[in-house]
């Protein structure tokens, strides 16, 4: 089934919240996920990998050049922030979802003026400054998201939903009023 990018991003945001990702990182992940679906849809399954966590503060080495292990959701934004601060190279070791990191990098290049590229080596990614980052082609139309990925995201998102109760129904919009006027 084809999905609009907006509904995909909305679900990604809720799924990230349901997975326990801290607020703010949820937004960065959702936007990166949208970008990933529009540019590299074959890697959609990495969205679920990225949300598996753990979503704990990324572990930066004492010299500030390595993050290990690198959970994309937490390590990606930190690494890009450090690059924007002037770091010339950051190594992300044992990355769980490299496509998500690449999507975050592309957005940082497009929107925050970062000039950097990602070089993969096994499960590691090195972010390094460059002159002209290669930007993937952004397809603006609806995207096909594998059913398993979409359902996995919905399952995570459902952790944020609150079931209705009699009390909440009575307090909700339109409760108790007739609409046949």
């Amino acid at each position, binding site marked *: *089934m*084809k*999905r*609009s*990018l*907006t*509904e995909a991003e909305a679900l990604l945001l*809720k799924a990230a*919240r349901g997975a326990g990702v*801290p*607020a*703010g*990182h*949820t*937004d*960065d992940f959702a*936007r990166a996920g949208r970008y990933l679906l529009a540019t590299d849809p074959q890697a959609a399954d990495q969205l679920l990998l990225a949300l598996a966590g753990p*979503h704990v*503060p*990324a572990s*930066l080495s004492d010299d500030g050049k390595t993050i290990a292990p690198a959970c994309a959701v*937490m390590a990606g*934004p*930190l690494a890009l*922030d*450090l690059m*924007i*601060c*002037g770091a010339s190279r950051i190594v992300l070791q044992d990355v769980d979802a490299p496509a998500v990191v690449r999507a975050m990098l592309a957005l940082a290049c497009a*929107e*925050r003026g970062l000039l950097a590229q990602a070089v993969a080596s096994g499960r590691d990614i090195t972010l390094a400054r460059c002159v002209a980052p290669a930007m993937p082609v952004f397809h*603006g*139309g*609806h995207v096909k998201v594998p059913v398993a990925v979409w359902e996995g995201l919905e399952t995570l998102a*459902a*952790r*944020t*939903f*609150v*079931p*209705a*109760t009699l*009390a*909440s129904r009575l*307090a*909700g*919009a*339109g*409760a108790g*009023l007739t*609409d*046949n*006027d």
Partner: protein
Amino acid sequence: MMLDDFAPPPQVALRPPSDVMRLRRMGASFPTRLSFLRTLMRTLADDKAVVRRTVWAMSDTGFGHAVYTLSLGGYDYALVAVSTDLPPEMRTDRVIATAWDTSYVLYDGIPDATEIARIVASAPLQEAARFTERELVLSRANKSVRLFEHVTASLRAGRQPDPKMIREVGYLMRTTAVYGNGKFGIADRMRIADRPGLAGPFMAEMLTVWLIRGFTHDLAEHVGQGKLDLATKRYLGIGNATGLGMAPFLVSHPLLLDAWMQVRETAIARVRAVAALSPVQIERIYELTARAAQHLAEWDVSDPIAAGRIATLRREWPAFAATLTPDVLLGAQPMDAIMTGSSVFSIDCQELIASLCLEPFGDLIDGLTDCMATPFEPQIDPTMSCGTLLDMISRDWTWACSVDYTGPAEAQFWYVSEEKQEPRLGNRHTEDGSERESPLDIARQVKALAADLQGQSGPVAMFLGAHPQHRNALRRVQTLDRHPYAEIRDNLIGDTCLPIDMLRCKLAFFGAAKFDPKSDRWTRITLAQGAPLWDELAQPDDWWLPVAAV
């Protein structure tokens, strides 16, 4: 041509966000000439848009479908309207409804018979169906049963409907949702964001509402086998029932909120800088003041708080009108004098005065509406020092950091309902679910950020690495520094937070009037009341605060 030719008009200082971005004042918003529906009407007029009804497949009792087409900015669009025989017990405005009197799609292009059949089958299902990128807007509306039946019965009897009923209700149907931007598989906004006429915020949705309004007129005349007189048709807008679904939007779109507010406040600032008024402008101000008085007289609601505010407005308005003396209007910077003098009145009166002050100055301010859309998203500046960030919080967030978030100050929590995946507001102390709270508690988040920033140094990038839980709050603080109207400066989880204030602010920007709150979390409104009919676009713009001519 010299660069000086493009110097912006003079303006005074903008009203400060510390005043403007308080919920109580946002909840007193009135529509202005900068509202989206007003902008749409001017755009349609400039483009000489013509609406054509190309399909009318309705039974005598008004069930079936219709198609209307128009061209705008070089693109064709069509409204496909479906009218369904709805059992009364299924009629509800709540978002949990599963069937409606009418359903609609705004289609990108001119649909052929196959597309029309597909839409006729799927539109009545609304969220239960999937749509394509050719659908730009999805909507549904229920009849105001009492009025619809009265109007059609009157027409069948060869007479016009009772003017009192027309004035009391003001619409034949109420939309209960107008979905755009990718929901349920319809087109993402980016598909139309660069198109002339639809680039502004919610333009596709407003176009849909205006077309639906015309359809409701056609349907009533068809079922009633008669013609409504023009004054009645103009007065019949489209009702709308808006609940909490819309409320978080202002929080989750800070740059858009800032853009809307900056445009409106800049317009007010320009108008206040006007050195002197022409006789035509003075006459217009008197005319609009009288119209506003009549509008207030026709605005009746049942909610006691809203009724009280309207009563205050009705009492204050003559006193305000009395201030519009020749000395003031012929004096220097008369609009500034009016705005300054408005501070003696209630907040609601102040905002009505601000709205009136904009009305005569289309040439000066209408161009600002081009700045109401923004493609940007808030970004973090990781190079900022912790000290600078803390200074920003001290400067801009005292209203948030001075609150003790216990008891009443954290009485409410925002969440997403399992039933319909829609926003809800719960009582933290009496309802379950607060552990799944949505992060709309911006003020509380910023206070927590400020606490952990104490004694920190170096770039915020390192701080965020160690304290990732503050990423959202930090982005909000930095955003507010560059976009001073981006934040609602009130505690959105406190017991005094009234979501109706958030709804009213956004709806006023849409162009809604006749706010009729039914609780503190949902309201009925009227859109496009007094707006030009389809063949009246030659005079698109004189319908601020419409009054009944019936």
